[in-house]
């Protein structure tokens, strides 16, 4: 019997339990017992829960343990004594034998596996039987226990609802687990990195030229300032110079001037800009924008313009951020009470005067918060810079020069090469932690600003 079949059987048993428990509870009501606390169906759910949940949990645990038990049994057999001693070869033969036991038509690579296959069939089916029996036992026991508890005054609903609550709570806990996972995985490797490179050198060093060479226990060339600069230059300066005016003005136009029809069509169209995957932007930047910018730069006399300029990456990233800024601006402006706008218009101000002098100043904290969020997103953006910004760790403010960013370097340091002892791998985690902390701070500050702002008008 396969595990899936057992699952289905248990589900079926759960259904039967549900029906019977419900019927039993229903009889109380019919027999006119004074106050029945819960509806019959809750009694049904309660009993079904007891019948199914323990059995399924057991099966889940069993399905991870059983193969190992089966392997144990096979290894005990005399045939197994002839297996090679090398753990890897043995594992290969065993796993092939198991695969063969499930699907005899497979092509045989190791002949030894053929002999072991029947042993595997025997062992596996034995443990499957044991598991199935135990699961059914649990199912019956659980169901019977719950069944005996069905009484008029039994608060089945409360019990069921408590279980539901528990499920909900567990679901929420995953967020905390994920956060812990991120922090732990970053910090652990970063600490190891800082054994090789001093944090001071990492945060303030001007030379980024990483290598695996370790001299006197110290790795060199891990001064990340050029990366930080490149990140800020592309994500916080160039991209924002594009995104803020375009995003803000689009939001203003669409919310204040455009007719409902135009707004209805243009808003989703602009939002497409945010839905285009970054790898597409990256490709576009590298293939189309960067060469165009370079020829433009050359034509205006900047002959040393790089074909992977900060400008190309920043420009495209800025466009990607436009809908982000515009929707934040849109929200902030919408949150300004209409009475403010009316107040200004009633004074005889024109629309643009109202927008410039009342709406935008009033929405400013929200807009600033939104821009900070956009910055945090821009500096964490990876593919555009990986594909279009290049790897040169230059400290330059020339937009036509090539710079590199934190995320580019993380990708560069980690793709493929995952030896967790090399300072270069560890450096990627240190960069990751830095990025994490910075984006986190930006977000906290931004959300704080936005929240304060919302409160001001509530």
């Amino acid at each position, binding site marked *: 019997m396969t595990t899936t079949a057992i699952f289905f059987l248990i589900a079926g048993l759960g259904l039967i339990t549900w029906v019977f428990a419900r019927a039993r509870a229903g009889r109380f009501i019919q027999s006119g017992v004074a106050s029945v606390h819960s509806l019959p169906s809750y009694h049904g759910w309660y009993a079904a829960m007891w019948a199914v949940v323990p059995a399924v949990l057991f099966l889940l645990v069993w399905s991870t343990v059983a193969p190992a038990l089966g392997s144990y049994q096979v290894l005990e057999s005399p045939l197994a004594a002839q297996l090679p001693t090398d753990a890897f070869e043995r594992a290969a033969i065993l796993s092939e034998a198991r695969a063969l036991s499930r699907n005899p038509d497979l092509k045989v690579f190791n002949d030894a596996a053929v002999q072991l296959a029947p042993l595997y069939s025997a062992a596996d089916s034995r443990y499957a039987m044991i598991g199935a029996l135990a699961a059914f036992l649990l199912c019956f026991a659980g169901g019977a226990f719950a069944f005996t508890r069905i009484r008029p005054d039994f608060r089945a609903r409360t019990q069921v609802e408590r279980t539901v609550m528990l499920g909900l709570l567990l679901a929420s806990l995953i967020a905390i687990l994920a956060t812990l996972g991120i922090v732990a995985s970053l910090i652990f490797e970063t600490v190891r990195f800082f054994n090789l490179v001093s944090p001071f050198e990492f945060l303030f060093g001007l030379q980024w030229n990483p290598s695996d060479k370790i001299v006197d226990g110290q790795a060199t060339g891990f001064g990340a300032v050029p990366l930080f600069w490149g990140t800020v230059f592309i994500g916080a300066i160039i991209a924002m110079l594009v995104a803020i005016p375009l995003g803000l003005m689009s939001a203003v136009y669409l919310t204040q001037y455009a007719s409902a029809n135009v707004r209805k069509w243009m808003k989703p169209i602009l939002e497409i800009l945010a839905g285009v995957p970054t790898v597409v932007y990256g490709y576009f930047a590298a293939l189309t924008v960067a060469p165009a910018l370079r020829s433009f730069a050359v034509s205006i006399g900047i002959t040393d313009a790089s074909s992977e300029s900060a400008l190309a990456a920043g420009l495209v990233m800025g466009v990607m951020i436009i809908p982000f800024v515009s929707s934040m601006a849109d929200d902030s402006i919408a949150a300004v*009470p209409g009475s403010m706008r009316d107040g200004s218009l009633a*004074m005889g101000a024109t629309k643009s005067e109202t927008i410039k002098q009342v709406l935008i100043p009033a929405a400013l904290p929200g807009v600033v918060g939104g821009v900070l969020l956009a910055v945090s997103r821009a500096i964490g953006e990876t593919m555009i810079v990986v594909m279009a910004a290049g790897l040169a760790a230059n400290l330059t403010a020339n937009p036509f020069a090539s710079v590199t960013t934190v995320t580019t370097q993380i990708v560069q340091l980690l793709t493929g090469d995952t030896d967790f002892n090399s300072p270069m791998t560890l450096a990627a985690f240190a960069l990751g932690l830095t990025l994490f902390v910075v984006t986190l701070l930006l977000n906290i500050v931004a959300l704080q600003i936005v929240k304060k702002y919302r409160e001001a008008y509530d």
Partner: protein
Amino acid sequence: MLDNTATTSTKSKMSARDVKVFYGEKQAIKGVSIDIDMDNVVAFIGPSGCGKSTFLRTLNRMNDTIPIARVEGDITLDGENIYSSSMDVVQLRARVGMVFQKPNPFPKSIYDNVAYGPRIHGLAPNKAELDQIVENSLVRAGLWNEVKDRLQDSGTALSGGQQQRLCIARAIAVDPEVILMDEPCSALDPIATAKIEELIHELRGRYAIVIVTHNMQQAARVSQKTAFFHLGTMVEYGDTSDIFTNPREERTRDYITGRYG
């Protein structure tokens, strides 16, 4: 308790003739004609949703800001049709000021709130004159003494009643001819309400004033003329004392005695 000094005006400041307002398909005002003169405070009363605010907002074309709103009929200010194309709406609104139900000071300093109108209309050639305008307006709105030491504080930091007086100061800073007030006291406590009512008394005569109110006692206290609206029509318009003591219409009487609303 009622102010019964009904005054007769020779020439009306604003007059509306057969005004109809539509929100999309729905007609909110069904032909209202009224004359408003300089000497009186006019109160609009009526149950919720009867169109008081709507009609009030036609008087300075604030309805223009609602895309689906459409106005028919004639409204004149000093004889000039305010819906004619030659009428500049920006100027109109400077001449017909408005105070709203919820105090809505700009999130700027008190000074900037009051100076906002004069600045955009270029009424003060220099800082000194602007200061003068701000001071005068605040004095006239009865707020000067309370705020003169903190003109740079934010307008939103004032109490509700002060905010509403600030809004009145802001409205009169551009030296309007008519002031429209839409339930200016409904968000205020009794003491602040009393202050505003007093202020309206003082402003009377200098500006034509129209006030919408839910509170019939208030209408009785501050106005000389009262218009009763119901379901988009103006049921009755006359001296406040008559309306409250001796309404001509059945519906008015029912409303005043609290049969509905």
